[in-house]
């Protein structure tokens, strides 16, 4: 019953490490689920060109393009936070863990995301 605005402030600082852990877990589970589905869709390629191209047409829907961009964001977050965790694990960054989260996972992550998503967004969504 502690008001949400107090809890939000707490989990953005001083407990940002806990927030990073939640993000890592949630993105990890989402990515695992995605991987299992992805193997299925890629398997379609063994059905030959007609079947495969037909299956790919379903993904030209703008909704899927947006999900794809979302996937990019989730991968970047999980990967950069993972690098931060490795730095903590190898004993070099426990003092800097909060700065690493904001600087690496968030700021640099956003830059990489924009670099990766912009071409996708422009070519895939607007040309349909």
């Amino acid at each position: 019953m502690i008001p949400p605005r107090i809890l939000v402030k707490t989990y953005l600082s001083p407990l940002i490490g806990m927030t990073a852990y939640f993000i890592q877990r949630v993105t990890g589970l989402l990515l695992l689920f995605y991987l299992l589905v992805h193997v299925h869709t890629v398997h379609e390629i063994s059905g030959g060109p007609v079947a495969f191209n037909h299956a790919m047409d379903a993904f030209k829907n703008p909704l899927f393009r947006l999900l794809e961009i979302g996937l990019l964001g989730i991968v970047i977050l999980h990967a950069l936070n993972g690098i931060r965790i490795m730095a903590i694990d190898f004993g070099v960054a426990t003092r800097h863990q909060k700065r690493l989260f904001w600087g690496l996972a968030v700021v640099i992550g956003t830059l990489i995301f924009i670099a990766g998503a912009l071409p996708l967004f422009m070519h895939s969504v607007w040309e349909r």
Partner: protein
Amino acid sequence: MSRNAFAWYMQRITGALLVPLLIAHFWVEHFMSATLMRGDLTYEVILSRISNPWWQAIDISFLLIALYHGLNGFYGIVLDYGKIGSRAATATLVLLVAVGVAWAIWGIMAFHNL
């Protein structure tokens, strides 16, 4: 090295390996040619890359490494929810290995008709 230490270490190793593999994968599927940049992911475009056995090896390694990382991570989550007893823990492990093997085979078989 204990079994737990090995799994912990491998999670980091596979995670580190996945970073360049993912960058390469994203590049190859979205930026490598003009067709791909338009978003035209057709059978022909993919076949031109996948018929090369080196790419097949990279893709299969990528799949196995990703499966290990994801399923090992999932096992860690299961262990975090209190003491589940060694029989339940082993059963979960067997299930996850089974899923891993099944998906690995399914993924590798995607290449068999090319």
